[in-house]
C-alpha cells in the first residue's frame, strides 16, 4: 500500500461515502434525462402527426370519411383536380384513374373511379395511400367515400373499379386553383396475414 492510498483511505470512510452518494444523485438525474429523451424520440411520432394535422404540411388527407354539409356551392370558382396513381415496388397490379382530370366548383360533390387489376397469379391485398399537393390544400380535400379507407383484396387476375366520392371545401384558399391527388398502392398482404 502506498502513501497516496493511505491518505485516500483515511478520508475514504466518511467523505468518500458522501461523495459516492453525491455522485449517484447526479447519475440518477442524468439517467432520468436519458430515459426521458428516449421516450421523447418515440413521442415525436404522434407529435409529428398532430403537427402535420394542424398545419396540413405533409399533404396527408383525413383517413376518415367526411360528412357532406356544404350549404352553398361556389359556382364562380373552378378548381381543377388531377389524379395520379403509382404502384409501390413489388405489387403486380395495374392501377390507374379512369379520369385524369376533373373541373369542379368548390362545394360540389363528385364521383370518380379508379381501375385496378391484379395481374399476377396469386391473391394480393392492396392498400392505397393518398397524398395531396400542394400540401396545404389537403385539409380542404374532403372524401365522403374512398377506396383508400379500406384494404382492397384482389384474387389472381381479378379486376375492380373503385370509387372515390369527394368535394373541395369552399374555404379553399383563393390562390389554389389546381389540386393533385396522388395515390400510391402498396402490397400489404404480408402485414395483414401476420
Amino acid at each position, binding site marked *: 500500500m*502506498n502513501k497516496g492510498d493511505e491518505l485516500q483511505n483515511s478520508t475514504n470512510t466518511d467523505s468518500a461515502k458522501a461523495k459516492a452518494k453525491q455522485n449517484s444523485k447526479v447519475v440518477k438525474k442524468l439517467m432520468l434525462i436519458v430515459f426521458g429523451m428516449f421516450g421523447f424520440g418515440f413521442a415525436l411520432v404522434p407529435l409529428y402527426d398532430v403537427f402535420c394535422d394542424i398545419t396540413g404540411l405533409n399533404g396527408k388527407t383525413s383517413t376518415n370519411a367526411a360528412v357532406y354539409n356544404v350549404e352553398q356551392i361556389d359556382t364562380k370558382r373552378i378548381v381543377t383536380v388531377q389524379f395520379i396513381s403509382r404502384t409501390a415496388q413489388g405489387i403486380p397490379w395495374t392501377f390507374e384513374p379512369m379520369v385524369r382530370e376533373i373541373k369542379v366548383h368548390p362545394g360540389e360533390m363528385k364521383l370518380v373511379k379508379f381501375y385496378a387489376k391484379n395481374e399476377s397469379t396469386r391473391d394480393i391485398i392492396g392498400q392505397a395511400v393518398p397524398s395531396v399537393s400542394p400540401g396545404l390544400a389537403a385539409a380542404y380535400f374532403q372524401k365522403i367515400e374512398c377506396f383508400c379507407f379500406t384494404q382492397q383484396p384482389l384474387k389472381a387476375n381479378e379486376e375492380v373499379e373503385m370509387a372515390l366520392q369527394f368535394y373541395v371545401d369552399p374555404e379553399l384558399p383563393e390562390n389554389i386553383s389546381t389540386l393533385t391527388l396522388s395515390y400510391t398502392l*402498396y402490397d400489404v398482404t404480408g402485414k395483414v396475414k401476420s
Partner: protein
Amino acid sequence: MTTDVIEQDSHDEHHGDHKLKGIKRWLYTTNHKDIGTLYLWFAFIMLLIGGALAMVIRAELFQPGLQIVDPDFFNQLTTVHGLIMVFGAIMPAFTGFANWMIPMMVGAPDMALPRMNNWSFWILPFAFAILLSTFFMESGAPNFGWTFYAPLSTTYSNGSTAFFVFAVHIMGISSIMGAINIVVTIMNMRAPGMTYMKMPLFVWTFFITAYLLIAVMPILAGVVTMLLTDTYFGTSFFDAAGGGDPVLFQHIFWFFGHPEVYIMILPAFGIVSTIIPAFARKQLFGYSSMVYATASIAILSFIVWAHHMFTTGMPLFGELFFMYCTMLIAVPTGVKVFNWVATMWRGSMSFETPMLFSIAFVILFTIGGFSGLMLALTPVDFQYHDTYFVVAHFHYVLVTGSLFSIYAGAYFWLPKWTGHMYNETLAKWHFWCSLISVNLLFFPMHFLGLAGMPRRIPDYALQFADFNKWVSIGGFAFGLTQLIFLAVVIKCIRGGEKAPAKPWDGAEGLEWTVPSPAPYHTFSTPPKIED
C-alpha cells in the same frame, strides 16, 4: 493556479502502482489514464480501418467507369466508412482525451465512476466487431448510407439492418455512459476552489458536449429501434403503406444528427483553445465569451435540424426558419474564431507541431464553416444538396477540424502521457504532408459539387475526371501520411528525450504540475486552487 502537490504525488511512482500484468491490466482497469489510452488507441485503429475503406472508394473514383468494386459494395464502403469515422474514430478519440485530461485538469484522482468507465470502453470493440463482421456475411454490410434513411434501411435493406441497429445501440450505450461519467466528474470532483468559471475551457467544452450526448444519443437509440421494428416486426413508423411517414425518419434522425455534429466539434474547440494560448504565450482571449459561445452553439443545435432536409418539400416558412437559425450559429462560431486570432495577436508565438495543427485548424475549420453557411442558404442548397460540395464541407469540418485538433492535442500531451518528447522533425513532416494532401483531397471537391457531381455514386460523368484524379491522389497521400503519426507515437513511447513536467513554457493548467509521464495515480489529495 499553481500547486505544491508534485512531491507528494511522485511517491506513488516509487512505491509501485499495483497494476495487473499483461492483458488483465487493460481488461480490468478502472484507471482513467489506462482507459484514456485504450480509447485513443481504439480510435486510431478505427481511423486506419475507416481510412482503408476510403482508400478503396478513392481508388474506384480515380477514373470514370466501374473498375474495382461493384456499386452495391461501393455503397457498403461509403456507409461503413462514415459510421466508423463518426462513431469509431472521432467520438472515442475525444472520450479518450476526456478520460486522460479531465481528472488531471480539475485536480481529481480519477473519473467519478471508474467501473462504469471500464464498461463503457470495453463494449465498444464488440459494437464495431458486429458492424465490421457484416462485411463477411452473405448479405453484405449496411449499404444505406451512414444516415440510414428509411425506407433504404427498412424495405430495401440487404439484411444487415439488425446487425447495424445492435451495433449502434451498443455504441450509444457506451457514449451515454462515458458522457454521464464526464458530467459527474466535472460536477463533483473539482478541486476545492475551482469554480465553474475557473475551469479550463477544455473541461467546459467536454462538459457541454457530454450534456449534448446525454440528450441526443437516446434519440438515436429510439430511431434505430423504430427501424428495427419496422424491418422485422411489422410496425409502420416510417412505412407509408401502414400509415407511417418516411419523412418522419429524417426529422427524428436529424434531431439527433445535428447536435451530433457539434458533439464532434465542440471538444475540438476546447483542445485548440488550450493549445493556442500555450504557444502564443498569452492568456486565452475572451474566456467567458468562449464559454457562452460554446453553450449557445449547443442550444442552437437543437433547432436547426431541418436544414438537412430543405429539399423534402418543406413549406416556405419552415425553410426560412431553419435557414435563419442555422445562420445564427455563425455568430458564436465567429466569436470563437475571433478569440483564437486575438489570442495569437501580438503573442510571442512559436510553431511546434501542436501549434501548427491548431493554426491549420483555425483556418481550415473556418473554410468548412463558410461552406456550411453557403449550404444553409435554402435557395442555393437545392443545387448543393447531395453533391460533392456537401462532402467537401463536412470533411473540412471533420478532418481538418476535428481530426486536426485531435492530432494537435495528441502532440501537445504526448510528453505528459509517455514521459518522452516526440520527434519534432518527424512530427513536422506529418503536419506538412497532411496539410498539403488534405487540401488536395478535399478542396477540389467543392468545385466537383458545384459542377453537379452527386455523392455516394461509384461512377461519374467524364468532365469530372481530372478533378477526381487529383482528389484520389490527395486521398492516397493523406492516408499514407497518417502512418507517420503512428511512427512518431511508437517512437515516443519507446524513448526519446526525457520530458520535463512542463515541456511547453507557455502551457497552463494542473496537468503540468505533475511529473511526466503522469504517475499512475495523480491528485490523490486534491490540489489547492489559488485565486
